[in-house]
């Protein structure tokens, strides 16, 4: 790294540049944006889970004060509009294509979940729109709701023609070899896994402001998106038939996404559509209830897991049969999340010769389910890491040593798993060793005994996870049914005075890109961080890019920036060679200066920039003027962050309350650009994973009503639930990107749930408890203790 820039370059914990504007209230969110003459839209949502719409009487509502228009599914059909599309469609195991039933942006004839969009009411004020919505008289012919994942396949069709309410039936791996492993196994371990359904709960609810300019016949959509370019493509080309060049999509400051803001939902499209139809700008901001009932939920799997071991306790086979609840309609990445982002991770960090998995994607009368922080990888990690603990117990080994025995050895890389992925690099034992040392694993039994003296049950649990990040090599994605490329774009625009704008196709909604990406520039160009602006989120300004999810922004987007910076330096060298009358090969660039090797003849970066734009003394025969370079980087492989997380809990058996006592983790994210930002990402991820493990559950009743549709009933993790988290890193650099980085955004959420549940089960095992499902609420823990004691008494 260039001398003098270490405080701002790669490896420096630079304070986040973007925080000032957030802290002084100068953030600019979608709801802060208002357009002249805008209308407000309120969506009338279905109060029932499954019904045919017999009639919609909107006459009274249309006459209500301030109402401009009321649009329904009939208007959508009349204008021949498309619905949200599925972006990645795997093939069924019999070779056929999965079902993709239509998803009209306003329900046409049938509603399929509580919250489904029935009508859009446009009025001068939001209050007027809400009041008018109450006057719409909808007659429903109700059908029994289908909410139970296990029995949904046997129920009537939610979408006409979609048999067994099954979107897809997919498989991966070698079934014959796996069967063979079980036939020869010395030990077979069976575990039933339920991965609970959770609600993303980004702090900022979704919002949209759409404006149609009748002059240049162009739309502008401001919206809460993790990937505005993709939103433009989907709304323009697939939903509303708008030429892409006539639609500008801007995602300004966005307050968290966690996956839920990847997808295009009906509301945003309705705003765009209506802005032209009504010749007025249209604004919509979800309230929290709409967020609970409308944002795609996460997880919701049931899996039967079987693990085969040989007589030496080495894993020889794994079989996983999963039902994934995808909800009433297919969301953009609903199909890839439980398949290629799940099945491919089933080898974990272990050397498993034979793996087979079958996943069925099931339709129910519930909110759509899609990728949520980790997306498939947390589900795979949870089932595998729970199974590792159950297996260790069954064969009488310490869970750490059982894992160690089965780790992929460090000399086995690149390692080809039995489920398609090839891990480029990793070294798992040092991560385990370090985490065990951090928590003083060997003296745990002393702490357990001490807690027992106070009437508390103490337990320890670990998770040695891996994830596939840096999503993703486009050719691989395409071969597996993806309908998008997953490269990333970067434009490095050097101004005449040497200040720099980086236009990235990723989007920052809490990740700190303004800082991390600027550090890449400081490191390469030797400029001060204040000279660097990161631009994202505006389709009129940035090149086409794929946005932020899948821990991809640094590994893919950052690499694109790095490559564009290299092009800037290469061009700068030729300009410098010309100005210094030297050969290109004699120019070196270091610390922000172009120097003729071995001399003191030099030009500063600023001088070269000026020369590029005031090209009086310039190699016109070789170069165009200007200093702006673009890179589209398509990764060669996924990246594979890994690590060990260990949780220690104390349980009050009298109430069932679980308290987190200690948390350590040692992660390998490859090289770190800003360790402080990375630590923050890990903290947030752990908190979300702990939320899933102990507190959060989207609960439906038999009628398809979401019982946990507010914070009165949906429990979020709170700061006082956590001990101080001890976060450390070890590094094996990624072998296939310039920065050697792997990504860190999802790791905490992937690693933490099994560590928590393993610790809870460990704490309760002296009482005879062998399993508990997430979330391990006080009631559930208490009931588990009661059942175990009843069983013991029999």
């Amino acid at each position, binding site marked *: 790294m260039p001398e003098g820039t270490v405080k701002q370059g790669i490896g420096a914990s630079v304070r986040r540049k973007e925080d000032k504007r957030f802290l002084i209230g100068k953030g600019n969110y979608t709801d802060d944006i208002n357009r002249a003459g805008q209308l407000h839209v309120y969506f009338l949502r279905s109060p029932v889970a499954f019904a045919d719409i017999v009639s919609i009487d909107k006459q009274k509502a249309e006459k209500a004060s301030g109402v401009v228009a009321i649009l329904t599914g009939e208007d959508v059909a009349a204008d021949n509009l498309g619905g949200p599309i599925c972006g990645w469609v795997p093939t069924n195991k019999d070779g056929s294509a999965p079902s993709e039933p239509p998803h009209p942006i306003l329900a046409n004839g049938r509603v399929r979940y509580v919250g489904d969009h029935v009508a859009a009411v446009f009025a001068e004020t939001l209050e007027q729109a809400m009041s008018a919505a109450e006057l719409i008289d909808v007659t429903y012919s109700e059908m029994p709701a289908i909410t139970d994942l296990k029995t949904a396949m046997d129920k009537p069709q939610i979408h006409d023609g979609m048999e067994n309410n099954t979107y897809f039936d997919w498989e991966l791996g070698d079934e014959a070899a796996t069967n063979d492993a079980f036939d020869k196994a010395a030990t077979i371990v069976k575990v039933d896994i339920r991965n609970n359904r959770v609600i993303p709960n980004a702090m900022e609810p979704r919002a949209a402001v759409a404006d149609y300019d009748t002059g240049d016949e162009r739309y502008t959509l401001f919206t809460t998106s993790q990937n505005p370019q993709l939103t433009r493509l989907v709304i323009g080309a697939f939903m509303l038939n708008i030429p892409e060049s006539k639609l500008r999509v801007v995602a300004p400051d966005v307050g968290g996404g966690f996956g839920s803001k990847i997808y295009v939902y009906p509301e945003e499209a309705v705003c765009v559509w209506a802005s032209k139809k009504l010749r007025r700008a249209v604004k919509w901001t979800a309230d929290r209830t709409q967020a609970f009932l409308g944002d795609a939920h996460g997880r919701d799997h049931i899996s039967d897991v079987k693990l085969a071991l040989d007589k030496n306790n080495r894993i020889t086979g794994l079989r996983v049969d999963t039902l994934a609840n995808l909800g009433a309609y297919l969301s953009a990445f609903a199909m890839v999340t439980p398949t290629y982002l799940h099945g491919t991770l089933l080898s974990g960090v272990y050397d498993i010769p034979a793996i087979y998995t079958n996943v069925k994607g099931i339709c129910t009368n519930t909110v759509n389910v899609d990728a949520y922080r980790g997306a498939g990888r947390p589900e795979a990690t949870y089932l595998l890491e729970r199974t590792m603990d159950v297996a260790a117990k069954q064969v009488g080994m310490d869970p750490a040593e059982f894992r160690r025995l089965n780790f992929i050895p460090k000399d086995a890389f690149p390692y080809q798993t039995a489920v398609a992925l090839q891990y480029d690099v990793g070294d798992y034992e040092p991560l385990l060793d370090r985490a065990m040392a951090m928590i003083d694993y060997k003296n745990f039994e002393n702490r357990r005994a001490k807690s027992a003296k106070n009437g508390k049950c103490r337990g320890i649990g670990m998770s040695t996870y891996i994830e596939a990040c840096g999503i993703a090599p486009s050719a691989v994605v395409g071969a597996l049914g993806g309908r998008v490329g997953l490269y990333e774009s970067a434009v490095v625009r050097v101004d005449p005075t040497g200040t720099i704008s980086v236009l990235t196709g990723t989007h920052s909604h809490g990740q700190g890109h303004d800082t991390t990406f600027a550090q890449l520039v400081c490191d390469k160009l030797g400029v001060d961080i204040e000279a660097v602006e990161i631009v994202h989120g505006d389709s009129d300004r940035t090149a086409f890019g794929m946005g932020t999810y899948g821990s991809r922004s640094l590994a893919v987007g950052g690499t694109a920036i790095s490559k564009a910076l290299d092009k800037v330096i290469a061009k700068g060298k030729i300009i410098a060679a010309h100005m210094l009358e030297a050969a290109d090969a004699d120019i070196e660039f270091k610390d922000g200066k172009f120097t003729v090797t071995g001399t003191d003849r030099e030009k500063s970066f600023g001088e070269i920039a000026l020369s590029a734009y005031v090209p009086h003394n310039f190699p016109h025969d070789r170069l165009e003027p200007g200093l702006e370079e673009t890179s589209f980087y398509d990764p060669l492989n996924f990246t594979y962050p890994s690590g060990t997380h260990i949780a220690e809990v104390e349980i009050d058996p009298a*109430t069932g309350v679980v308290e987190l006592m200690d948390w350590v983790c040692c992660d390998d994210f490859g090289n770190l650009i800003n360790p402080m930002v990375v630590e923050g990402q890990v903290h947030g991820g752990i908190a979300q994973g702990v939320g899933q493990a102990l*507190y959060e559950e989207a609960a439906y009743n038999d009628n398809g009503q979401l019982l946990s549709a507010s914070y*009165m009933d*949906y429990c979020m993790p709170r700061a006082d639930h956590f001990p101080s988290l001890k976060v450390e890193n070890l590094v094996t650099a990624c072998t296939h990107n310039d920065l050697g980085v792997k990504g860190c955004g999802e790791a905490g959420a992937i690693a933490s749930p099994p560590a928590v549940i393993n610790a809870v089960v460990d704490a309760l095992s002296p009482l005879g408890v062998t399993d508990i499902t997430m979330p391990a609420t006080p*009631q559930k823990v208490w*009931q588990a203790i009661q059942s175990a004691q009843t069983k013991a008494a029999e």
Partner: protein
Amino acid sequence: MYSTKYVKAKDIDDAATIMASAEDGKFLAGGMTLIPTLKQRLANPDCLVDLSACGLSAIADDGSAIRVGAMTRHVEVAESALVQKTIPAVADLAGHIGDRQVRNCGTIGGSLANNDPAACYPAALLALGGTVHTQSRSIAAEDYFDGMFETTLEEDEVIREVSLPKPEKAAYVKFPNPASRYAMVGVFVAKFADGVRVAVTGAGEDGVFRASDLEAALDANFSADAIADGTVSADGLMSDIHASAEYRAHLIGEMTRRAVTACG
């Protein structure tokens, strides 16, 4: 919320007069339940009668009891030297309602008038055998609560103050709902010279109630050991996604043991 008329009453009689003239008015005390209800359009009153200028917030020593004005905010009760000295359990209870923002707005009168089945104050009033004083009468705690969200207050009756008798010992222990932090089970134990009173909130299908089995056990032996498992029946207890009736019954016993221990 729907549009509505807002009136700030000058005193308690003015409040009652305004309410009598409204078709479907609501008294606005701290607003910690009413305002969210309005915002969600779950209520549509034609008039809000604000009680904040009625001079109803004061805490006074009344010999064998303390008197707390209806508009006294939770934070004022929690921080009152008088309450801390005479009935520390009530100060402690008030200091753990909701969060800081709620405690800075919410009032004892509002809580008791709303009678949320998971609110804390009803347990204190009932266990202490307190009295609710309105502009026209005094209502003993036993005669005041009338089921979930219901009281025996008349439509235009305003709580003026509450008197809370001083016990020998008392403690309130709450098991908060993990999500809402309201009481999933809250037990107020009060020991008087003439016996022990135990009131339970958060658990009963009809709201706050006295647990006579627990009172009898503690009358005989005022110690945590007196509460055996299974003392409390699950009959009549609420069941929801957070807690079954059986779990609530267990927690009532456990919280009672902890309250007795806390009494010292």
